[in-house]
């Protein structure tokens, strides 16, 4: 078992607004080992994309971060922007969601690669740069004859493969894939997932796969973290979490998956909570079918449900921290429809 390549502790990333800040990432901890794929699931607007960008230091001007992102003895949160920029490419990589607009339309694919390589290894000969680029593209199934073409000559799926090749050409140890297949059709999605699985097998890359699609997680991830309202509510081995979900939110997500056997639609009532004023204590309590009194008054504590499987939920204790009467069901008139985030 290898050591964690990326170790995130109590990470917070808040966006400034004219009023109160948006607490997109509000106290997240996890780790990824080399060669491991961690899936990060959650609804739209729960802060998943922010997490990906925070790791690479790509947040906009008005955002603040706190906590630790431990990578190779360094804390990326406190590192200088220059240091972080130097790491983007050779150490950290990011694949975006929408491939159609991620390449400069005026510039050839070759140019994109040379630029990336020059930014980090300026002393390498251009011939060598081209060779490495073609290798990376070849691994993605893009033939060398297309090296000098322009982005608009490629389909969406191919552009995503080019983006992956660009992200990998410098062999980063950590790769963040932010919903890489959401904008693509199912067949292409399968191909991309194959490529990502390859990474795991052949290159020892630690992959953080951000998605809202549970199917992808089941297929492609070793472990999974379930995110809700800026916090991780459950984490553990993917198969185990799916077989024995501990957190009501995870359970609800799994229940709402549609398959051929579905007869009626199950959904989670209410709407995703505001990230500016999240619900107090357990953030899921307004929509939780099993909510207890303590859930609306005290922040849940992280407990281990099984080996390597943790969750933040009062249903799993710890008992001694629940005040008297706290285990009574929470009284509500109706499921509160929280403000739109």
């Amino acid at each position, binding site marked *: 078992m290898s050591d964690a390549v990326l170790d995130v502790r109590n990470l*917070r990333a*808040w966006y*400034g*607004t*004219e009023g109160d800040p948006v607490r997109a990432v509000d106290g997240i901890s996890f780790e990824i080992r080399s060669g491991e794929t961690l899936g990060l699931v959650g609804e739209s607007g729960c802060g998943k994309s922010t997490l990906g960008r925070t790791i690479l230091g790509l947040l906009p*001007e*008005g955002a603040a971060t706190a906590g630790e992102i431990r990578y190779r003895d360094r804390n990326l949160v406190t590192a200088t922007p220059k240091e972080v920029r130097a790491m983007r490419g050779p150490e950290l990589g990011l694949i975006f969601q929408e491939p159609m607009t991620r390449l400069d339309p005026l510039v050839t694919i070759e140019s994109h690669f040379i630029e990336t390589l020059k930014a980090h290894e300026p002393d390498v000969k251009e011939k060598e740069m081209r060779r490495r680029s073609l290798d990376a593209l070849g691994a993605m199934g893009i033939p060398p004859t297309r090296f000098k073409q322009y982005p608009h000559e490629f389909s969406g799926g191919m552009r995503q493969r080019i983006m992956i090749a660009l992200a990998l050409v410098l062999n980063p140890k950590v790769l963040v894939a932010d919903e890489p297949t959401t904008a693509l059709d199912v067949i292409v999605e399968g191909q991309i997932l194959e490529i990502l699985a390859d990474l795991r097998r052949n290159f020892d890359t630690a992959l953080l796969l951000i998605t809202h699609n549970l199917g992808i997680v089941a297929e492609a991830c070793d472990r999974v973290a379930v995110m809700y309202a800026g916090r991780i509510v459950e984490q553990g081995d993917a198969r185990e979490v799916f077989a024995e979900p501990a957190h009501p939110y995870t359970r609800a997500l799994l229940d709402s998956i549609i398959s051929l056997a579905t007869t009626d639609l199950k959904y989670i009532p209410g709407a995703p909570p505001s990230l500016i004023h999240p619900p107090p204590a357990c953030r899921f309590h307004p929509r939780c079918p099993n909510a207890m009194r303590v859930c609306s008054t*005290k922040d849940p504590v992280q407990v281990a449900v099984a080996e390597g499987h943790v969750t933040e939920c009062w249903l799993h204790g710890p008992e001694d921290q629940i005040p008297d009467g706290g285990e009574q069901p929470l009284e509500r008139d109706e499921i509160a429809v929280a403000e739109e985030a």
Partner: protein
Amino acid sequence: MSSIGEIPGSAAPQSPEAEIKNEQRAAGVRRLIGQIRTARGVPKWILYTGVGIVLFFLILAIFAPLIAPYGFADSSSGGVDFPKQAAPSSEHLFGTTVQSTDVLSRIIWGARTEIEVVIVAVFFSLSVGVPLGLLSGYVGGKLDRGLVLVMDALFAFPYLLLAIVIAFLLSDKLGQGIITAALAITIVYIPQYFRVVRNHVISVREEPYVEAARALGAKRRTIIGRYVFFNVIQNVPVVATLNAADAILTLAALGFLGYGLQPTQAAEWGYDVQRAISDAGAGIWWTGLFPGLAIVLLVTGFTLVGEGLNDILNPLIRYRRVRKPEIPAEPAEGEK
């Protein structure tokens, strides 16, 4: 409160449509005003400054007879002849011209001319360009293609050239005057409104609420008139202000070339500058400087209003000042 479940055309045929109509209409205007009220920073100042300048000239224009010390063609007052090309003094704050007219008075009366022409020109351009754009965008097909071709050709033509020729030709038939100048300017700007409105209509016509109206059986005229119109006119104020700015420049250019208004009909700043050019050689600066500055100021005013509005309303470049937040050291544990 009427229920939307009623069959349209039955007891109260207005109800479902009226509700939707009022909602859409109010929403469009409310949104506009709301955004203007909450604007901050640079765009706010740009807008307010522009409005201030325009208002100033409006007041000059409306109250010209009260404000101007003399008439625009007066070369004497109370039996006393004005000096010719006299430098600024207490009687003539901005000096006098080669025709012994008072520069300041001509500036003030000129404001009236400019505002009059601008209002007429913008009004005409709007009344032709916007409906054409609405129609063309909504109906599409051959009509649309034909109109677009014509409008594009018109748009490509150097507009000053067009205005000059039209002014010239019209002056033969209609005589020189406000209408002639305004018409010359009008024709040039119709394509602008047409384009802007048409493009917006095309993007709006597939919106759900338009589809809903169609499904309710609303007539085409109703749909365009009530639903599409109020959403599309958001862009028009910006174009109108820029149009006004250009109209003044065109009018001044016409005046400079001599195709604008006759000096006996009204004062016009461009004409004054043209007269002043020969003065420059003799070092007489006041006859040309003040009318020229007036043009610059008024055009800038309108442009600022347009730019300010655009900054505030245009979602693509709207920019809110954000403060980087302070993240507290430890998250608050326990009770909240």
